[in-house]
């Protein structure tokens, strides 16, 4: 995910469903249109929940990446 400027990031490791998803929603709410926000989750359920929410809200899932064993960073662009 090099070259992408992350406006806000939250490390939600240690919280479980729905913690990381609610953290993503909180970040998106507080972001400006065009910003990319990121949440790091250690919860397996986030791999389904966070992309599903981004899709429902018609935002853009910029990407996902493993940042540590069992920890995934989700990047979302608030495009509207």
């Amino acid at each position, binding site marked *: 995910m090099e070259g992408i400027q992350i406006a806000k990031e939250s490390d939600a490791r240690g*919280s*479980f469903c*729905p913690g990381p998803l*609610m953290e993503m*929603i909180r970040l998106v709410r507080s972001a400006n249109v065009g910003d990319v926000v990121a949440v790091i989750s250690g919860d397996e359920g986030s791999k389904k929940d966070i992309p*599903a929410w981004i899709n429902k*809200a*018609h935002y853009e899932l910029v990407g996902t990446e493993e940042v540590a064993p069992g920890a995934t960073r989700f990047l979302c662009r608030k495009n509207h």
Partner: protein
Amino acid sequence: MKKILILGGGTGGTIVANRLAHALQPQDASIEVISDSPLHYYQPAQLYIPFGEEDPRKIARSERKLLNPQVKLRIDTVSEWIPDKQALHTARGDTISYDFLVIATGSVPCPEEVEGFVAGADHFYTPEAAYRLYHKLSEFEGGRLVVGVGGIPYKCPVAPLEFTLLAEAFLAHKGIRSKTEIVYTFPLNDVFNIQSVVPVVRELFEQRSIRAETFFNLESVDAEKKLVKSLEGTELPFDILVMTPPHKGAPFLRGHPMADNDGWVKTDRNTLRVNDLPNVWALGDTTNLPISKAGSTAHFEAPAIVEQIVAAIRREESPPGKATYNGHVTCFIDSGYGKATILDFDYDHPPAVYEPNEFRHLQKMAFNKLYWYLVPTAVI
């Protein structure tokens, strides 16, 4: 003599104070509760006010009368907490120090946080709001009822589900069910955040023709057009909108170094200590723990905190397991038509959910009356 300060005169603070008074002699420690109200509210009763089944004037009692005489009660509001100095400032200008501190200041519904909420939506999270909704439902002649959750976390996770089911039964009893569409909204991808509960709720919704709108994160309410909008872009028209407002911790905790921006206190899930401070604990709605914000949570958390404080004062070791909380929560789900079910779970055991029945409903109704005699008084 040690000084124990307990912030909050709700279920959690009152149980801790009374348990400490039972366990300690007056010469061991002074116990003081600081509450911003002289009244203790039984908040679960607010659910029944909109249906005319509870009187808002009868759901509160004197906190003084619920407390053991050994416990001092101070009516004041905490304005600042300074952990380094083991002291608090209050709205009346007092500075109070402590040796042990228990934070049980609960959660605060914040409808003003959502654009248009106050003008266009109703809720039942205060006696006054629940009473306004009673009048609105009494005059309702049919249309579109939208019930939903306006933010997570919130007080009593099953309450919006219960309200939806009770409203359906209320409208059927009133003879206007066929003229009313009921829509339930939830911020996540299903109707509830505990997976084992979902199939039972979905079945009840199907039987009662209640439509669920999921991934609906409340964005704003247009009171004039009677339209509620979600962050996801969904718009729902309504005639009555009943939304659980966003909740926050007590104002003095919002943004405090020991809490997050919304005021949920950083709490250890087992010891309930705050941010590893050796002499400060939190319980009930106050914590940042991902468990139910409910009276039963505080009820089951209180013994672990009391055990640790008593052991510290007596310079004893606590027996294994007695000084830790295992995530135990119990709550009823009233489904209307004189039936209810019960959820009982902890950190390691999700709830098994059973079909609602008459016995559980009677049990819930009896508990609502017996609460005053058994729970804050620490009889059970």
